[in-house]
């Protein structure tokens, strides 16, 4: 089984105190902490290998290139992409999604067509499509939600139709925790000739994700949410799709030949990687992937499911005080994200009080503003777990919420 204490020891920041209390970090859906192996990879790279890649005949450049391309291979293997050239480095999931909007959708979505989303999309999988559909005079359609925040597919055949160019769906909602039936939606999209995009920002870090099995055309995710550094993300896409796309950013090494009049493009993956890439962080993300695979993604999934089940049970205490949980109750339909509202105390005040106790949660709209509004609130409080969180920390969280509610009731309200 999974030795959480051993894992925790790999994360220097978890030894930190906040406001006189041991840090209880439950803001993992925003970004995760990094094990020392990942931090050390950055140090190693800069102290021993740093050079620009792909262009040099000297030793450092060669070594840096090898390490950099090895990292790509690791990520490709991690999501079962097959060919490493189908993994494009970006800054983050948001850039990956924009890349698809600019390079694929601009050329492939036509007036009168539609793009199908869910109401629980992160702004990054929503706003690019609003811009695109406005420009193209195309439409956005939303698959409805039931009142637990689960997709209602009863009418799906009239939503995804022959004029659907793209179905783009978050795998796990960062605002509700809902896990969507990605495989099924992908099949429905393909049956209508639409492309299928998975926003894997919250799923790739927490569960076994296999792009071949899903058969998705695109998948976007971020390194910083999976123990990797900030500044590195990925776009996976099927090879023929990438080959048919025009470049996004141009310049640097993404060319084959350039004259004063025009340019032709390099092969994959470089065609989509203009300028000096984020070499160090790509390499460190490779090390994060090693770290995750050492634990085992199935083990992480199982551990977090158990922890979430425990937290949902405990949360009943908060509900008895009037607290309201968002998202599905059924642990099979959700990941380790507890998004909730507390009566009489605004999420921001709750966040400040919990922070006084060393507990880091996120409060706000979680970049899913329209969804959160549709829940009837302007903001929610959200605790999100990773494999280094413990049941003891869940206890501290629940106690903290209850304490803050009491404190506020006695005082402000």
């Amino acid at each position: 089984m999974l030795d959480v204490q051993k894992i925790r020891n790999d994360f220097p920041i978890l030894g930190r105190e906040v406001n006189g209390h041991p840090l209880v970090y439950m803001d993992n859906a925003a970004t995760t902490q990094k094990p020392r192996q990942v931090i050390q990879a950055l140090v190693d790279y800069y102290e021993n290998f740093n050079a620009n890649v792909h262009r040099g005949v000297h030793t450092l450049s060669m070594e840096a290139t090898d390490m950099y391309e090895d990292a790509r291979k690791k990520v490709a293997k991690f999501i079962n992409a097959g060919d490493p050239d189908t993994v494009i480095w970006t800054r983050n999931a948001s850039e990956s999604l924009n890349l698809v909007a600019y390079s694929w959708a601009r050329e492939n979505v036509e007036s009168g067509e539609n793009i199908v989303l869910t109401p629980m999309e992160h702004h990054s999988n929503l706003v690019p499509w609003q811009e695109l559909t406005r420009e193209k005079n195309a439409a956005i359609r939303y698959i409805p939600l039931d009142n637990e925040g689960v997709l209602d597919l009863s009418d799906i055949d009239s939503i995804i139709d022959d004029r659907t160019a793209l179905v783009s769906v978050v795998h796990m909602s960062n605002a509700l925790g809902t896990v969507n039936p990605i495989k099924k939606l992908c099949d429905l999209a393909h049956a209508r000739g639409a492309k299928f995009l998975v926003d894997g920002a919250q799923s790739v870090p927490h569960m076994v994700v296999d792009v071949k099995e899903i058969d998705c055309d695109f998948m976007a995710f971020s390194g910083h949410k999976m123990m990797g550094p900030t500044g590195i993300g990925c776009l996976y896409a099927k090879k023929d799709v990438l080959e048919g796309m025009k470049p996004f950013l141009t310049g640097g090494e993404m060319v084959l030949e350039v004259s004063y009049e025009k340019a032709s493009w390099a092969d994959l993956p470089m065609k989509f990687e203009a300028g000096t890439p984020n070499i160090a962080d790509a390499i460190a993300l490779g090390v994060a992937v090693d770290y995750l695979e050492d634990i085992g993604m199935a083990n992480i999934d199982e551990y977090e499911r158990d922890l979430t089940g425990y937290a949902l049970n405990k949360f009943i205490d908060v509900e008895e005080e009037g607290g309201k949980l968002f998202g599905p109750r059924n642990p099979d339909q959700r990941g380790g994200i507890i998004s909730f509202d507390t009566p009489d105390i605004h999420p921001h005040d709750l966040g400040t009080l919990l922070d006084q106790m060393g507990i880091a949660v996120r409060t706000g709209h979680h970049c899913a503003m329209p969804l959160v509004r549709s829940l009837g609130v302007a903001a929610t409080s959200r605790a999100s777990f990773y494999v280094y969180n413990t049941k003891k920390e869940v206890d501290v969280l629940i106690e903290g919420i209850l304490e803050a509610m009491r404190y506020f009731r006695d005082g402000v309200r």
Partner: protein
Amino acid sequence: MALGSLNDLYRDKVILDHCRNPRNSAVLDLPDVSCEAINPFCGDEIRFQINLDDSDRVREVGFQGEGCAINQAAGSIVSEALNGLTLTDVLDLSKKFSRIMEASLPKDVVVADKEAINLGELSALYKVREFPVRVKCALLVWSALDSGISTLA
């Protein structure tokens, strides 16, 4: 337990009072000045209506808001503090308050500490400084007023 150590922000009498009984909450019809602001990061919202008297001084204020306790208290306290001011006074007060709340150089903080004492009930909000992330909750009211008044000019 844990919260024993909390700074007394949420226990401050003035803040408590304004949170429990927000002042001037009625919406004014056809006001001379009307403005609003939202903080997209937290969804806090604030709306003001202002009526002026013959000498162009604030005679009547309406304030409605949604959001955290600090935002609510700030709106209510400010709705009272505006009374009798000219719109130029309001802008000056806004500048002064923001400066005080955002002072960061040690010498500026010393000045801010002093100035904060003489702000009447507004002084209570000065405690928010100890929670820098929340300072914007106390400033949202002012950005509503700033934008509302400057569109008039």
